[in-house]
């Protein structure tokens, strides 16, 4: 049963590398962002002796490396799904022996795994050259990667729920614009929650967005077993809740599916 989805992921990965040059060029943007922030955090560190809750300029650069790797590593399937819903093309998946949402998840993971691997390699190189290494052991790294995998699955479910809203609304692009901006702020893209004012950090922690970027990035830079366990548990809760939402949206959407006949 799961073998077919594994092969969907494999083919998706292959499709992504069909244009290897374009794929690699996409990562240049990621390296550029890191470079800009390396300069910013270095200046901040020199002028004010900046350090919050153990996050100095070096940790902040490595934190950004991890959060941006996730932010830019997630496959962007939402426009395609939005189109499939609006044009009725989603219907053509129904008479195949697989589940649409799982097919999309497998395809998303095929592309995401590849982009993440590349982003981590590039990001680690830039951060290493710019600010030097941070102390990470293999077990902590594995734990952070597990948390990142949960985070990316969470992102998939949020994006899928927003895409499926195309069954009811004309255009889902504004939702994704808002989601992107909320990830910047409540997700903790540029800085960890420790740097945030308390009130904002409290709001951010109450949302699933915090578990998409902040949790895995913080674990990578500052591993803490209690935080790891609580983050993993909250991710599991959000994944379960959003899975139910996606399943409900999908089954309601398919019922009202109105494919135009020819």
């Amino acid at each position, binding site marked *: 049963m799961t073998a077919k989805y594994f*092969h969907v992921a494999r083919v998706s990965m292959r499709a992504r590398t069909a244009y290897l040059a374009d794929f690699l060029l996409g990562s240049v943007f990621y390296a550029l962002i890191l470079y800009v922030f390396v300069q910013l955090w270095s200046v901040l560190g020199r002028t004010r002796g900046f350090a919050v809750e153990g996050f100095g300029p070096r940790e902040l650069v490595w934190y950004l490396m991890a959060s941006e790797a996730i932010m830019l590593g997630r496959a962007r399937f939402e426009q395609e799904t939005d189109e499939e819903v609006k044009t009725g093309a989603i219907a053509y998946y*129904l008479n195949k022996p697989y589940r649409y949402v799982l097919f999309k998840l497998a395809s998303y993971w095929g592309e995401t795994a590849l982009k993440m691997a590349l982003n981590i390699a590039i990001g680690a190189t830039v951060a290493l050259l710019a600010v030097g290494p941070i102390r990470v052991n293999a077990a902590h790294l594995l734990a952070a990667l597990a948390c990142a995998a949960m985070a990316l699955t969470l992102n998939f479910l949020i994006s899928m729920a927003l895409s499926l809203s195309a069954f009811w609304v004309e255009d889902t692009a504004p939702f994704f614009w808002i989601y992107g901006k909320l990830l910047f702020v409540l997700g903790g893209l540029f800085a960890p929650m420790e740097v945030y004012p308390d009130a904002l950090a409290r709001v951010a922690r109450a949302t699933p967005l915090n578990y998409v970027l902040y949790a895995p990035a913080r674990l990578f830079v500052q591993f803490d077993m209690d935080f790891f366990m609580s983050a993993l548990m909250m991710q599991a809760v959000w994944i379960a809740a959003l899975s139910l939402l996606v399943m409900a949206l999908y089954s309601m959407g398919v019922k009202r599916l109105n494919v135009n006949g*020819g």
Partner: protein
Amino acid sequence: MRQVGDVRAIEVSGLTKVFEVREKSPGLAGSVRAIVSPSVREVQAVNGISFQVDEGEMLAFIGPNGAGKSTTIKMLTGILYPTQGRATVLGVTPWEDRQRLAGKIGCVFGQRSQLWYHLPPCDTFELLAHVYDIPKPVYCDRLNMLVDWFELGEFMRTPVRKLSLGQRMRCEIAASLLHGPRVLFLDEPTIGLDVVAKRAIRELIRQMNREEGVTVFLTSHDVGDMEELCRRVMIISHGELILDTSVSALRRDYLRFKIVRVRLADAIDRFEMRGVTVAKHKQTNLKLSVDTDVASIDDVLTELMRHARIADITIADPPTEQVIADIYGRGASEALGGR
């Protein structure tokens, strides 16, 4: 191999589909009204159609745009829920158990591709083998056979985006046959193809039906597909089945007009007769369109011979396109009355 007529592949009874179409008045006020109190119009896409298809049969399901062809095919493949009625395909109700049906049928939608656009066809075939749980040795044998039949060898490793439309359609049909379906739904399989590619696709469909006894349910705007592939034709118009007959009977029974080409021994100035339209007249050569409901061929020949001696004559049926256009034109009620 089972003979046509032994087993029913498709059984449909009173199948109906009503779509709800939202309507919006123009302008900003219309947009606001559409949110506050949406106006919905019902469109009857398919209206209580009933028919059976035997296993191994090749059937053409034709009709003008918006007649309900694709909606019917989508209900039969489990894509759409009907509003009313029953249908079974190979004993399975498509919309209730579409996953089970998926392994027994193949679908080709001429305007939708199942091939991965940036990858060579061999990657899609390999993925489909996993999706349909085809054991590796079976898949290899099946693939070799299909590559051989459809002559795919030379472009199996070329990205789909670089294939011609004809090559792509050969791959689409081969992909839909990989899991050995017993019923193949073809929705406009020759759309956009040139004459040579159309001929090749039709020959492949014929061969597949002959060799494997696959039932073919074909919708097409191209009358050539119907004439060259199918013995039976069903015509749907405004969601109703207005004709279910053999292709030969369609031509025989619904042919009101005959085309008479005649070469006379001597030139004549003009030819006029009730029920006869002169399509072309050049000295001794005439091309006449005869409405046989109004004037018999005998009468036309007698009238011609009153003007001059006949040197040569041919009497032909008009093209089938014209026959079908005529049936569409008569409308559902009249055609049903004429059956």
